[in-house]
């Protein structure tokens, strides 16, 4: 099951440049939350702080409190590897391991986490591919085809399956459909909608119609600050803040 996320006073920097200013935001468990805003507004930085990916960039650092369920992400005993297992991430460009088979792509995270039981691994690979709505398309080629041989949309679903295999509680998606055609995009969107039964999903997107279609809650970021955060219907029909309205009606950004 998914868990909620509590962010309090989150600040982030790239070198001397502050990219997030004191973000407070509560993300509901088992819901889809979209993060929107113009380029450079801090939305990707924000989600990358949730699973400590931000600090992997040289000179980048973050401060503040992020609690994912009971886990204190920035607590003193926190292990970034464990954090990233429990908070999976899918990126803009599908990035399967190109030479690995479909099966090995999905099993990669399990193997890295020291998983050895073959039967259980088979089950987890199948379950993950089914959850990612890819199983039917690849079940006959699991070991024969490489990740790179799949279409772009299939590759992205493979990456989602890979992220799901290690049984995370939260799934972060950074522009997961922006490199895909409309049919693949609608498959991913349908998938996101299904996934919330099992996971808490946070999706960064430039595509406001996509946010409106998949997310129950939407957060608008501008210049590193969280400007407005509300139910998606409210944000896209009657936003409270003029800056949100100007952005979603295309008057700037």
């Amino acid at each position, binding site marked *: 099951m998914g868990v909620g996320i509590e962010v309090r006073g989150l600040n982030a920097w790239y070198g001397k440049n502050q990219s997030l200013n004191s973000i407070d935001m509560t993300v509901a468990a088992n819901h889809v939350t979209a993060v929107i805003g113009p380029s450079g507004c801090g939305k990707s930085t924000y989600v990358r702080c949730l699973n400590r990916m931000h600090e992997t960039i040289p000179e980048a650092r973050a401060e503040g409190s992020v609690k994912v369920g009971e886990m204190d992400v920035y607590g003193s005993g926190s292990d970034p590897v464990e954090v990233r297992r429990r908070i999976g991430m899918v990126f803009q460009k599908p990035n399967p391991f190109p030479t690995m088979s479909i099966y090995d792509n999905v099993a990669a995270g399990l193997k890295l986490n020291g998983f050895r039981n073959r039967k259980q691994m088979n089950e987890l690979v199948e379950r993950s591919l089914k959850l990612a709505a890819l199983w039917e398309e690849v079940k006959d080629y699991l070991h024969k085809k490489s990740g790179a041989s799949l279409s772009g949309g299939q590759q992205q679903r493979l990456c989602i399956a890979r992220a799901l295999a290690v049984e995370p509680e939260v799934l972060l998606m950074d522009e997961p459909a922006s490199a895909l055609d409309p049919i693949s995009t609608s498959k991913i969107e349908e998938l996101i909608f299904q996934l919330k039964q099992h996971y808490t999903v946070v999706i960064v997107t430039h595509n*406001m119609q996509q946010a409106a279609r998949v997310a129950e809650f939407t957060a608008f970021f501008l210049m590193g600050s969280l400007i407005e955060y509300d139910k998606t219907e409210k944000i896209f*029909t*009657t936003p409270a803040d003029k800056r949100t*309205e100007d952005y979603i*009606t295309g008057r700037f950004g």
Partner: protein
Amino acid sequence: MRSRFQQGLDELKEKLLRMGGLAEQAIDRATEAYRTRDSKYCQMVLTGENAINEAEREIDELSLDLLAMQQPMAVDLRFILAVLKINADLERVGDQAVNIAQRVLDLISEPEVQLPVDIPRMADSVSTMVQRALEAFLDGRAEVAEAVLQMDGIVDRMKDEAFIVLVQKMYNEPTVTRAALNVLLISRNLERIADHATNIAEDVIFWVRGADVRHGGAHYRQ
């Protein structure tokens, strides 16, 4: 691309205001027909209906195109929804003006009868409501729209009074029944136009403030 969208929105507004002008003209001509008992004005209303219907189609089409091509959000989306609803109301105003013109044609086919109802005064209030509602739409002024809502009760009372005095008249003087019925129906048509003006004012408030004020409430989205 956005400026093209803005042009589309401006065009939509202009078309709706032009249609509003036609609807206002239809009310005024129907009233003039009643006042002067001149069938020429009735004919103008009847032939003018086509232009209103054509305008309605054009506005629907342009709205549909903008929704499909530009996928508007927030205030722009509320604007187009308001336009679609106001469009339907104005078309109905045109229909009501036609109904009045037909009643007047029937009235003037018989000798004039003095009835204790001031239709021109009622028509004046109704016409003002439509005019104000369109002014509110022109400048996005919710406070002007609110003033229109206040006027609806006055017209309702005029119609109720007309009903009482005309029923009494028919009771006392059965020979005027036909004329009295025609005037009763005209007062009913005018009252319906006032309702459409109220709807238009409510749609303007929805567009500007994002609030649903229909049915006597102020419902803001939570």
